[in-house]
């Protein structure tokens, strides 16, 4: 009978589910977590391989006029977006998914996760600083990616039509079951500006590295977005605010212009101009083995301009390749830097009628670019002439930053600054004239199918 008692005890022990609960509570992988702490959310944004690389500038770089490729190289391209994007073809993607689109929305999803997660955290006074930073960073990243998408997939901002033109789907929540539609260009830009203004309040002036957003970076992006919207008063204000926090420039007179790469590859750490570090791979069409720098651009550099030899390298066969990326390698720097702020400040000042300040901003930048012995400051007092110089300076300075496509779109609304882009491929001439619907890339096919949203005109 003792046996029976033992037995019953055994059965009872096995039947006890209570001890099992604790046993199953242990975490599976030590490196795994359900994000709950501020540091978890900061960790998500510190994943720079997602947040700061492969920025959504590829289509803009492919479609702009900073380079050309030879027929044999064009023919050998296999990626549809490069081959078709180069000639702004009807069908750009041939059914393939579009990295610029996918990557930007992935980053927006991560930013939204951080925003929703930190909403639930009531920070203690000791945590307030970290909480502000992570929320400010998430808002910055969301705005940054919405802004890039707006440059590719919806019409340029025009105050007259912005409230009717189709925008990009604005994703402000992580809920993947929500459908958001296309909204308007007005809504797109006002969300971007709103996010950035909030971010600028929350972000610290200094970040741990250049891949983390900072207050100067938020001001810089605000200046860029507002310039794009034609709000020169506010754009100038934010460019000035940015420069009041960080105004350093690299003096090209002190650089060794003969090296294979003008800058070192250290994620912007040693380049004081870099406000926010971000880059896009060079792809195939704009890689050093195919790229020809646009001859019009090369001709625009005056004698004594260090940028010609600093930015470009003759590799024989009549080809000049680009070597001036702030990324320090063959990838293109697509982030934010002080040189652009000087140019935005100058443009806004001249557009607002403040010629002397505009000249000052411009000359400060140029001093750092020209051979000191050959440099003569810009002295014109003519508004139109000065604006022309500043706009050309953008072309010369911001090479392969992904900004040329934006500038072409924006300036095409002003007939005196409008430009047609022309390609000659296999004896066929392709032209992208101002006002063409092809200044807007098509929405990816699978997005149109699955989200059931209207496609852009082509």
């Amino acid at each position, binding site marked *: 009978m003792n046996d029976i008692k033992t037995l019953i005890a055994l059965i009872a022990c096995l039947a006890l589910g209570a001890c099992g609960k604790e046993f199953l509570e242990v975490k*599976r992988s030590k490196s795994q977590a359900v994000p709950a702490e501020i540091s978890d959310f900061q*960790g998500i944004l510190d994943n*720079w391989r997602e947040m700061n690389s492969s920025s959504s500038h590829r289509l803009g770089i492919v479609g702009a006029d900073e380079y050309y490729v030879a027929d044999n190289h064009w023919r050998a391209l296999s990626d549809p977006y490069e081959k078709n994007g180069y000639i702004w073809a009807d069908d750009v993607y041939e059914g393939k998914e579009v*990295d610029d689109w996918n990557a930007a929305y992935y980053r*927006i999803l991560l930013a939204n996760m951080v925003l929703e997660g930190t909403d639930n955290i009531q920070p203690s006074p000791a945590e307030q600083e970290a909480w502000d930073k992570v929320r400010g960073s998430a808002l910055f990243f969301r705005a940054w990616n919405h802004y890039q998408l707006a440059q590719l997939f919806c019409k340029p901002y025009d105050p007259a039509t912005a409230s009717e033109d189709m925008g990009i*789907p604005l994703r402000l929540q992580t809920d993947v079951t929500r459908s958001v539609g296309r909204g308007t260009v007005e809504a797109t830009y006002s969300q971007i500006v709103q996010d950035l203004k909030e971010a600028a309040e929350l972000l610290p002036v200094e970040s741990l590295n250049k891949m983390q957003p900072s207050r100067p970076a938020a001001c810089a992006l605000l200046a860029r977005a507002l310039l794009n919207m034609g709000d020169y008063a506010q754009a100038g204000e934010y460019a000035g605010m940015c420069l009041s926090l960080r105004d350093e420039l690299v003096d090209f007179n002190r650089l060794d212009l003969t090296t294979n790469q003008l800058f070192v590859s250290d994620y912007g750490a040693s380049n004081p101009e870099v406000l926010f570090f971000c880059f896009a791979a060079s792809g195939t069409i704009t890689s*050093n083995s195919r790229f020809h720098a646009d001859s019009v651009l090369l001709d625009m550099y005056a004698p004594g301009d260090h940028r010609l030899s600093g930015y470009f390298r003759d590799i024989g066969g009549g080809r000049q390749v680009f070597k001036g990326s702030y990324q320090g390698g063959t990838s293109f720097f697509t982030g934010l830097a002080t040189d652009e702020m000087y140019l935005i400040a100058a443009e806004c000042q001249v557009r607002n009628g403040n010629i002397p300040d505009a000249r000052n901003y411009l000359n400060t930048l140029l001093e750092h670019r020209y051979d000191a012995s050959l440099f003569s400051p810009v002295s014109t007092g003519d508004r139109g002439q000065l604006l022309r110089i500043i706009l050309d300076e953008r072309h010369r300075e911001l090479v392969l930053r992904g900004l040329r496509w934006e500038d072409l779109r924006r300036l095409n609304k002003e007939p005196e600054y409008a430009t047609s882009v022309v390609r000659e491929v296999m004896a066929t001439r392709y032209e992208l004239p101002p006002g063409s619907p092809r200044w807007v890339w098509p929405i990816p096919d699978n997005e149109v199918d699955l989200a059931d949203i209207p496609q852009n005109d082509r």
Partner: protein
Amino acid sequence: MKLILITLFAISIAASGAMGQQTLRGTVVSAADGSPLVGASVRSTVRGASTISDHSGRFTIAVAVPIDTLRVTYVGYVSKDTVYIASQSAGEMDIRLIHDASTLEEVVINTGYYEVPRERATGSFTHVDNELLNRSVGPDILQRLEGIAPGVQFVNAGGTSPSDIRIRGVATIESDETPLIVVDNFPYELDISTINPNDVESITVLRDAAAASIWGARAGNGVIVITTKQGRYNQKARISVNSNFTMGEKPDLYYNPNRLPGATVMEIERELFERGNYAEQPQTVIPAYAELLIKQRDGLISQADFAKEEAQMRQTDIRDEALRYLYRGERHQQYALNISGGGDNYRYYLAAGYDRNNGILVGNSAERLNINLQNTFRPLKGLEVTTGVWYTQRQTANNGIGLSDLAPGSGQTVSTYARLADDQGNALPIPYERRLAYYDEAAELGLLDWHFRPLDELAHTDRGSHDTEYRLNASVRYSFLNSFSVQATYQYVRPTGTSETYYGPETYYVRNLVNRFTQVDGAQIVPYGGMLEGGLNGLTNIHSGRLQLNYNREFGLHRITALAGGEIRQSVGQTSPGFRIYNYDRDLLTGTANFNYSQSYPTNPTGSAQLSAPSVSMGHVTDRFLSYFGNASYTYCDRYTLSGSLRWDGSNLFGVKTNQKGVPLWSIGGSWEASKEAFYSVGDWLPYLRLRATYGSAGNVNKQVSVLPTINYASDGTTGLPFARVRNIGNPSLRWEQVNTVNAAVDFGLFNRRIQGSVEYYNKYASDLIGEDYLPPSTGVSLWATNLSNDINYANLRTQGWDVQLTGRNFTGAFSWETTALFSQVRNRITNFNTPEVSTISLYFSSPPPSAGQSRDVVYTYPWIGLDHETGMPLVEVDGEIGMEYTDYIRNFRKEDLLIAGVRIPPYYGSLMNTFSWNDLQLSFNINWKAGYVFRRSSITPGEEYFNVYHMDYFRRWEKPGDEAHTDVPARAETVQAYRSQSYMYSAALITKGDHIRLQDIRLSYTFARNRFKTLPVEYIRVYAYTHNLGILWRANGNGIDPDYQLAEYTAPRTFAMGMQLDF
């Protein structure tokens, strides 16, 4: 379950009465070899008690004093009555039963939790005994199941791991679809190739719910139970030695059609050269022939030398070169020794095995050492203690260089005209990563020789891995109250593994690294010397424990067996980072790793880079499982059996609420042996007939899913900050996948049981299958977010099929002939799919997304009209017009218009094994067949040859009007048009039937037994010869493709083995 057991208790106590009785113990063994008979029915006819022998054949029974008669019955054996006289008989009684040749072979099935004679099992089991397992020769145990186990399908021919096997089709879409492997009663989720097949006694495959549900949440894909050999009580020491040697043929490298003769490749390269296609810059690799043409153009080579080198290229073929220097016939040696035996209270099994394999690539070899020792004691009445130790050590060398390793860059293939050694046997360079012409200048640039010479790499690299595994088992079993036993089992498994590569200073690997980081002033950032790299170190500790109560009782015509228990398991896997030592001296063990990893250096020939920082990646994964289980079966009159099982499984799934960590699973089943009924009237021609049916549920665990968002932390070498990757965005409504299976079967024996067989029908309903939701990419979930899982319960799948097994003893006597035929049919269909259908047509060809009403294995195609008479380009139909508007055609192609070519996994397969014996000589051969499936063969589309895509169809291309009558291969083109290519590549023109019949193997053996050869110093000697991969007997396709090796470089080479087995 608790309640049932207590009730069973009460019954047993009531049955055990009180007066004039004595307890008798004994063992039931087979008269032939003394092996214990498990589950034999023992009845004391006077006292009226009954019991069943346990797993070692032992029983304890109440008998009447002074005299009683024990009646022992066991299926497949002649029943025996033994008189017991209290005053004369000893306390122990050995009962030896004689095999009844007229009945079915008795098979005891081991499920890992209990053993049951096949006659009383309701579920669907496939049992593979020792003899059948040992028919084939080789180092891997799972491979031996190919073609001999019904319902077990090898989706990868010759596979050696569970993922190569499907048991009765599939029951999931994106979760783990590998069957569960159980070794000696515990799940074994490590590398199964550590097991020495010579140590395996038998394999049981659990196919339906009643069989598998005892294994619960992991049983949805079927279970393969491997039972190792053990010693037996009262058996004199037996020594068995087995040794064999296998030789393989050299592979047929010309099998792969995706190459062109060197001369053709050279023509293509000349054309590309003339088009100016090659970017002549240091960092871009250019084919050797193009380099030669550049030299000629630039006047760097005399016309005579050019002609000489060109001629040399024309007559070289890399496949001949590779066969000469890189590939060889496989060699395998196997030695196994085991000693087993036992006394009254002790039994043991001791074994050692050594395998050595020289792989098909020169420089690849593997060694395996297995040692195992098992002891069982009976220190006290009713108590049995078993301990076992297994030790496996494996060492591999992986220095082999195959054809694919010679590719100059990603997406490229080695030129057919490449040469590996000159006439004197000196290693020659081939283009690799950068331009040959640039490498030629290395010395002038102050750099080390930069050429890549494959044969030198082979000689100066030493890459190997080493792993060991300990497995300890301990088990205590105590039997009491006649019918009960309680068993506690514990297992500890500890696999560890390391890998290391030494690169000599002569290797390209070292020279390349040094050269890349050599500065303009000649400073070498990376010191020139040997390098040692250590891979990730892995260490796993697995503890498993089980407590189980068994009840086994027979009274009158009733027989009840039941068990209940709990199981607990923890596996902790740790990985620690590898290392890299520069300037390593093998003799002095000196080296350095002291570098500035954050400094960016200019590199040759272009760019700048940092030295890759040492890895700091650590891993620590804990898997925990907790299960409660119960199983009971009741047999009445040896005719009617009812069985049922219940199990609850829990695991520490991450990101799941506590109440979702477990799942309850169950099964019921019944069987009826109709031929035992009194009214059974067709016994003359159908002497055995049994019907079985079961229903139940099993599950499938997906460890990746999460209802909560989850992140994974890692360290970042660039920023020095920790960062987190988002793995899951979370889905609060996730449920476990579940598989419900119905199984119905007939077992029969015909014509005096000369023909025996079984026919089984099953239907598996898998529901709540988990898979990726297909969302608009603006949600953030897209192909881009590869680390992100967004799983939902999105589909149901139904798999149904038949398994038929027939064995005929065509002749018996001195000459005998036995035939076993297996036939299986299996089909699956997605019955419900609740996410949006994927609209990107191209995905339906690469990896078809699930689609309601279709098989999971469906193959889609575009329709094929033919080639245009004028241009030789594919014709397509757009809006009823036949033409060549490829863009309109493909862009507007709708999913509904895709043709369904068939399925890629054979829905019909089987085998036919014939065994002929003449006295001690035995010959057997096994023929396998697969039918009813298709595959998409490779070809070449217009212009692809200019993008490094080669195929022998190049010579079958359309060349002039009229060719379209006898070829489907389109004409050449200057460049590739993706849509035009797709309209051919994914069309019905390339759909190929997979049906084929294959002669899998032949075995011939002769046994010298002592009863015939009186002077033989051993019990018997068996010599055998075995040949495998004999090739295809018939195939439906006329393209020379072996459907089991559709895209392989070569088919499995034929092997030939000779061996000898000695038993002392």
